């Protein structure tokens, strides 16, 4: 029993390797925030194209649907490997794409962020699409009838309502994204899981990984609680768009 406990909860190991694990966790957080922000922008753009009705955008709409299907259907790890193993060798690409070293982060960091964005953009596009479709059509029509252009109506009337309803599912996907950052260690990013694994290899003890798990929970547990609560709150209120109060 004692052996078991020491394997996972050796405070000495945790203490000694705390700086390394914490540094890894910081990378995890940076990667999550950057990829999270980028996939939100990318997902929203995809959703807007997919939901548009303009005839000129029909080809783009088809491409968007195909994109979303493909990247929801293949493993993130595969995308990570394809991006990191191909971009540096495509010679006509500009240097900042082949070997990005922006804001003091190494190229592998950006390949990882790109892979996460490409994949999670597809997931978030579906979240945004559901949010946009949940806004009653009469909202757009009322705005247009007042003389707003399509984009003005989207910006001032439809999107603000859609965004509110998608906050909980967005946060859910953010939690998933944060956990999935552990996959990018395969291309050499020492994020928290990789840091813990390296300690495990040196010490034959798993406590650094336990420490990593605890650090994850510090972020993901409150987020998950918040999501649960706001979903519960949104349910009874729901559709209060017109109809006698």
């Amino acid at each position: 029993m004692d052996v078991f406990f020491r394997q996972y909860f050796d405070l000495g190991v945790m203490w000694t390797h705390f700086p390394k694990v914490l540094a890894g966790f910081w990378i995890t957080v940076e990667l999550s925030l950057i990829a999270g922000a980028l996939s939100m922008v990318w997902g929203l753009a995809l959703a807007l194209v997919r939901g548009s009705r303009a005839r000129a955008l029909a080809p783009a709409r088809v491409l968007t649907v195909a994109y979303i299907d493909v990247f929801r259907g293949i493993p993130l790890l595969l995308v990570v490997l394809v991006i990191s193993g191909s971009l540096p060798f495509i010679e006509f690409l500009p240097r900042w794409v082949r070997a990005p070293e922006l804001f003091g982060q190494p190229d592998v960091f950006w390949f990882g962020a790109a892979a996460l964005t490409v994949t999670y953009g597809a997931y978030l596009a579906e979240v945004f699409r559901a949010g946009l479709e949940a806004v009653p059509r009469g909202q757009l029509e009322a705005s247009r009838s007042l003389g707003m252009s399509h984009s003005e109506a989207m910006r001032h009337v439809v999107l603000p309502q859609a965004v509110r309803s998608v906050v909980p599912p967005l946060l859910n996907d953010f939690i998933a994204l944060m956990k999935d950052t552990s996959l990018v260690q395969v291309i050499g990013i020492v994020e928290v899981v990789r840091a813990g694994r390296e300690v495990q290899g040196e010490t034959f003890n798993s406590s650094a990984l336990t420490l990593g798990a605890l650090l994850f929970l510090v972020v993901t547990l409150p987020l998950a609680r918040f999501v649960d609560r706001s979903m519960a709150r949104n349910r009874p209120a729901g559709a209060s768009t017109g109809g006698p109060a």
Partner: protein
Amino acid sequence: MSPKLRIEGLQKRYGRLHVLRGVDLTVPAGAVISVIGPSGSGKSTLLRCVNRLEEADGGDILLDGQSIRELRGPALDLVRRRIGMVFQQFNLFPHRTVLDNVVLAQQVVNRTGRDEAVAAATDLLRQVGLTEKLDEYPGRLSGGQQQRVAIARALAMRPEVMLFDEVTSALDPELVTDVLDVMRELARQGMTMLVVTHEMSFARDVSDEVLFMDGGVVVERGDPATVFTAPAQERTARFLDRILNP
């Protein structure tokens, strides 16, 4: 002088369903024209074609003698501003206060400054009897109050024509009067109005002309007194009998 609004031979199909089969109609400036008819006869579609929420398949729509059927982009937005519309389901913006519902389009479309827009909105909301509700959200208002906000919101764009699509049909009976009073007052002030309604007393007392629509055509039209007391068409008589003696 050309009439404010003129509709000529308007056609609309939804797939194989032929909803409007050549509708003609003229609304002179300052006139109130009411359209009555059974559900499904194409009344909403007619109004929605006028401000181009739906594309007509044939015929023409003229505002001050100018065709608006082919307009696109900014020119279409400009024309929509000149035509106000009030919907059966209100379609207020639930994420904005009552005041902001009336202010928003002024700022976004007309680029009116906030102060000026607020002053205009406050004035309009006073006219429809909602001075006390400026900072409420629409969800906390009764249906009748919401519909009056919707009227004020449309009026804030200073439209030249107002379209009303069964604006009292979603209301509890005791709330109908307040909304109709606002519309009567608007008519008295000389607003040009095209009103689809099931309120026969309104159609009879306020309109300059009443049209009875059925099956996508105007079956009968005339001054209210004649249409309501001595309809020329059998179909009109049957419809009125059903509505007035339920």
